[in-house]
């Protein structure tokens, strides 16, 4: 992205900015990258013009642009720039609704290994094979970055990364196995303790316990419990989930609740 496309000093009339100034008194769209001013989106009348500062020089591809006047279009290439959006529903585009312009600099996500909208696996090679853990880390960083600073989606720069290029065993090794170890450990501890307890109470040994239906049921409950309830919050979550699955159905059935025994429809 060209850097210094539009550096302007504050109160300017930049007719040069927009090749075709619209004669209408509509307000322009000024996309708003930062979400830090949720309270004052549209009705800004202040004329605080931030100077065209380059902001925190975090990245080389930052640039700023100002549009001091309402009713003008900004026709410049996409910049990772934030301008205060001052479009107001139906407001007159003349001086009455001058926008406040605040310039912040937000940089795009950049990483040398992120090439053309996907991770370049060659750059992740370790011993001749791609280091999948590093790819996962990189993608996690990218998503975290974007969550905090959402970027505009661009047609020239489409993102085509698909997590399924990372093979299933890489995911398994990294995420499933530790948890599986944990759960198996829990199950084993519970199993051992319960087997001991039942044995000491009833004298039935482990092998005989396995033959008993009630014991088998208990075993099943224990296994399911360990699988399903992994954190304390899971108990509440499961209850809510169960309610959630049937909630919509109940909303639809509501109209049949007060109905005469003519024709109830149960779906």
């Amino acid at each position: 992205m060209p850097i210094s496309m539009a550096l302007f000093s504050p109160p300017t009339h930049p007719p040069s900015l927009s090749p075709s100034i619209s004669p209408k008194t509509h307000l322009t769209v000024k996309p708003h990258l930062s979400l830090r001013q949720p309270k004052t989106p549209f009705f800004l009348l202040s004329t605080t013009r931030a100077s065209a500062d380059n902001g925190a020089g975090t990245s080389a591809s930052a640039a700023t642009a100002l549009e001091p006047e309402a009713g003008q279009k900004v026709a410049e290439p996409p910049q990772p720039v934030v301008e205060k959006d001052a479009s107001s529903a139906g407001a007159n585009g003349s001086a009455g609704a001058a926008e406040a312009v605040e310039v912040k600099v937000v940089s795009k996500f950049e990483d040398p290994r992120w090439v053309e909208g996907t991770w370049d696996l060659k750059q992740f090679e370790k011993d001749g094979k791609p280091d999948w853990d590093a790819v996962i880390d990189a993608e996690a960083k990218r998503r975290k970055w974007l969550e905090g600073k959402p970027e505009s989606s661009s047609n020239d720069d489409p993102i085509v990364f698909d997590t399924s290029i990372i093979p299933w065993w890489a995911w398994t090794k990294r995420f499933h196995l530790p948890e599986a170890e944990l759960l198996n450990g829990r199950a084993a501890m519970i199993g051992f303790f319960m087997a001991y307890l039942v044995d000491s109470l009833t004298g039935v040994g482990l092998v005989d316990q396995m033959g008993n239906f009630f014991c088998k049921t208990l075993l099943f409950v224990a296994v399911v419990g360990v699988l399903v309830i992994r954190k304390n919050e899971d108990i509440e979550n499961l209850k809510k989930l169960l309610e959630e699955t049937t909630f919509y159905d109940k909303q639809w059935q509501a109209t049949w609740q007060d109905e005469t025994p003519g024709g109830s429809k149960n779906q």
Partner: protein
Amino acid sequence: MASIALKSFIGLRQNTAEKPHLMTAQTKPSSLNPRKLRVVASKSSPRLTNRNLRVAVIGGGPAGGAAAETLAKGGVETYLIERKLDNAKPCGGAIPLCMVGEFDLPLDIIDRRVTRMKMISPSNVAVDIGQTLKPHEYIGMVRREVLDAYLRDRAQASGAEIINGLFLKMDMPRDGESPYVLHYTGYGGKAGAVGEKRTLEVDAVIGADGANSRVAKAIGAGDYDYAIAFQERIKIPDDKMAYYQNLAEMYVGDDVSPDFYGWVFPKCDHVAVGTGTVTHKGDIKKFQLATRNRAKDKILGGQIIRVEAHPIPEHPRPRRLSGRVALVGDAAGYVTKCSGEGIYFAAKSGRMCAEAVVEGSENGKRMVNEGDLRKYLEKWDKTYWPTYKVLDVLQKVFYRSNPAREAFVEMCADEYVQKMTFDSYLYKTVVPGNPWEDLKLAVNTIGSLVRANALRREMDKLSV
């Protein structure tokens, strides 16, 4: 009070003098013995002498227009009460292909045919869907004022009387034969802009007056959860408009909406950029800014020409029917989850309800009762319940969180998914599909969800 008013009114109609006579003679048998083999309650309703059944349709949108047309064609004396005949209802404006065929819509009311859609994930992974569409398949984008006017005019041509008026309230009848008395403010003619209060007596009412339905309030239908959809119409430069020639975009992400999606839909000569939410209505402007930001490059240089917002029901009202009053369309709450689609279902429910009335009254010759209208509800629930349920499940699974949305977009890249999605959407049937492919799809879905959630856990560990 109502009865006194009715008595004086009855005097104006010479035929109704006979009605009470008929009624007393036949109320007993009607509840006991249907006269025909088919056990249908209304068939034993008294015949109306010297007049046809009178039905008022409140609301002249797609639901009202479709209902009025079907009623009028069925021989019912139909009144369509609409408060603003040139209303440009804020709306996404997408209609499925089947609506064009089922409602005989002329192709010139469709401004654009969308044949491609782009789904964009929170991390801006963009997936194109639409490759599986056949050449004749598309999603139609319409202007509501054009569509509504067309359906109303057609209803009028079939014999419905269009009344420009604002429905205020209605008086409930005392029994199964008395009419409903509707109070409305009539505009037009000498009434002018202020309007004058008028009344109308009808035998049945179809409430098609939208999300804030007064008819629903009048019958105590209850409330529903609703989403706020906020939309800005933006006129963008021609070269950017060319990109949206037949493409619509859907943006998902927590920044855009916590429980819905942001969209860029092409309209006749501009695009509509909007978003919606149920749970965080107060933040809607923030979400709108985020949506515009995500589409920034593609709408750069655009001018906002209009800002609009409207409520979208999330589920049907607790009561969709009471006595001889039925709700259809948004008034009933027939908007699907996940996609928020309502136009087709409004029109279809209007038509279905009207068909039930026509059938129950034997083309307007008999009085109807609640049982006849219940048939419309039965048929509706049976036909479209699977569609609604599937979309609800999709919303619950895929709009939950950012990882779920990432998985959603990943899944959309799959051709089978695209085919199933479009088939279901365009033809409004839940297509069963190939079981082997369904299994693969299930496995892939779970895989995507697991991967996305695993990444989320990694993200949480990072303290950026």
